[in-house]
């Protein structure tokens, strides 16, 4: 918790922005104004923010179908993201990508991904580029417990290990691979113990606690920056909503979500820690909440007013040139 005040404020604001972004989408999807398939990140904020607060714009991340949190944490424009989710012409991806494909190369966000294990090979490639550039940049791939079972993930782990790349594999174990419990689909004791088999330094940590995430990642990212090769982390976490919006979640224990909301809410845990330690006051938090709420309101307002894409743009940006 030895962070300067402005860093604490920034971390809280980022986590709260993700939460409110997702809560807004959850409400709005019921009205039918958000097209397509949406997978919400609420509940896992401490991981995205705890990781990305250790990164700069020169570092890279890749994400998954559950990507809004990673995008916000890495610095994607929240208003541009909201416009994208509403399918608008001036959205971050001009309405072409939507929820599962938010990306912003300018901030090192190489894309959410509709293929759950699609990110790790790409992050490993970005790590190769970073190694060749020699400026100390790193690449982080975020993945869920479900995504760790796709073959390209294993191949990229081995490649990262043999080439000693600054590729950091972050696993957010929210217990459910879509609708299936992780214990059934992961035969090894944990994701972490499996990754160790590749000769990669691996850590298991508590993803409910921003400070633990931040501290663990600080050390690992530092090592990767210094040329010590890849590493991996498995964070225990939870998602507050279903695999996708509309998922009845009848695979969860009856009181599981209630318990997670009451006892494992990473934002509540953060608030309690910083207020009890006297680092931020309730008033400070309230002020930050207000800032976040007005940003989300502004983003929704702008998204609703934004122009629709023009049908003729369907063939634009297929190639740079043809």
């Amino acid at each position: 918790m030895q962070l300067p005040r402005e860093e604490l404020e920034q971390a809280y604001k980022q986590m709260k922005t993700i939460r409110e972004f997702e809560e807004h989408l959850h409400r709005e999807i019921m009205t039918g104004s958000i097209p397509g398939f949406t997978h919400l990140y609420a509940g896992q904020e401490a991981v995205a923010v705890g990781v990305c607060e250790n990164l700069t714009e020169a570092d890279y991340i890749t994400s998954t179908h559950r990507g809004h949190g990673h995008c916000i944490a890495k610095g994607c424009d929240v208003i541009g993201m909201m416009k994208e989710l509403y399918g608008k012409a001036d959205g971050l991806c001009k309405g072409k990508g939507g929820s599962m494909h938010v990306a912003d190369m300018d901030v090192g966000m190489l894309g959410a991904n509709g293929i759950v294990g699609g990110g790790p090979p790409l992050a490993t490639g970005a790590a190769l580029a970073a190694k060749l550039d020699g400026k100390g940049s790193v690449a982080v791939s975020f993945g869920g417990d479900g995504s760790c079972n796709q073959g390209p993930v294993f191949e990229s782990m081995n490649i990262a290990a043999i080439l000693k790349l600054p590729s950091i594999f972050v696993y957010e174990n929210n217990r459910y691979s879509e609708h299936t419990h992780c214990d059934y689909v992961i035969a090894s004791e944990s994701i972490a113990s499996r990754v160790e088999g590749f000769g990669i330094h691996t850590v298991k940590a508590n993803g409910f606690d921003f400070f633990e995430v931040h501290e663990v990642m600080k050390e690992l990212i530092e090592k990767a920056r210094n040329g010590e090769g890849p590493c991996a982390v498995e964070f225990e976490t939870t998602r507050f909503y279903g695999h996708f919006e509309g998922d009845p979640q009848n695979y969860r224990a009856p009181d599981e979500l209630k318990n997670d909301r009451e006892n494992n809410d990473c934002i509540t845990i953060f608030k309690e820690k910083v207020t009890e330690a006297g680092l931020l006051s309730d008033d400070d938090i309230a002020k930050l909440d207000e800032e976040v709420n007005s940003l989300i309101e502004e983003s929704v307002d702008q998204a609703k007013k934004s122009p629709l894409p023009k049908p003729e743009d369907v063939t634009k940006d297929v190639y740079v040139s043809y």
Partner: protein
Amino acid sequence: MTEKTYREALTDALFHEMRRDENVIVMGEDVVGGTGSPHAEPGFVGGVFGVTGGLHAEFGLDRCIDMPISEAGIAGTAAGAALAGKRPVAEIMFCDFIGLCLDQLMNQAAKFRYMFGGKATCPMVLRTTYGAGMNAASQHSQSLHPLVTAIPGLKVAMPSTPADAKGLLATAIRDDDPVIFFEHKTLYTISGDVPDDEYLVPFGKARIVSEGNDCTLVATGRMVSFCENAAQALAEDGITCDIIDPRTTSPLDEDAILDSVEKTGRLVVVDETPPRCSFAADIAALAAGEVFSSLKAPVRQITGPHSPVPFAKELEGEFVPSPTKIRDAVSEVVNFK
């Protein structure tokens, strides 16, 4: 006959075939749902689109297997089990994910019989969903039947009605070759009369959806009903169409298409894929090569543009061929001078 949805008709075929032959097994992500769950009894998903619902209760978890998110593993395990005497029906949630398992389909399953001198059979079915219409964006909306149709050794079925869904799936399961079975994700809820008993629709035998004199329309899956809509509007202008649904793109009922084009002298092919190296181009080339002298107008292809499937409604709407575009194309060829 009972009125059933496309989804129910598929489930019906699976029940029939699993009862008939204990070598038929079902495998895929959440095809049961909840296997190994500490909190729930297995069976609450039954496939993300609900097609495999209820199977595990009758056939058990040994024959209805929940798999990790491991598409290459699922396709390869199905191919290997098929070589070893089983008849696996593997589910790949979206055909876009065939990208992950293409080696197992293209280099393995498709080629065993040929490479091994006719001494192997690989009776697997890979069921998958396809098509745009749900704003699911570029990695969950593709129609990849041309890709697998182009691979010798794979058969490809794409039912457009509930009855065909049942009959083609049963045939696919009994077929000794690997079959890629495409279910359009917007068709699961459509209803129609479905035979109650065992029902088989042969591969390579087109369905003549409607008969007319002025133009031949060829389409599969969701595009068949789009052609029917267009044909109804055209009939008001006195233009009548043959609508041919090949049902399987491999094997292809060439005779049904060519006989019709010889009769009408005009051909419009409709498919919701990009145009290059497509099913539409394939059918157009077939007609141009075989019945050139019967053609009274250029063959028209109504397809998506040469682009990925976009997310926003307005863009996706532009990508997918519409009944209006089909109608305009038919009017154009009928009025060609």
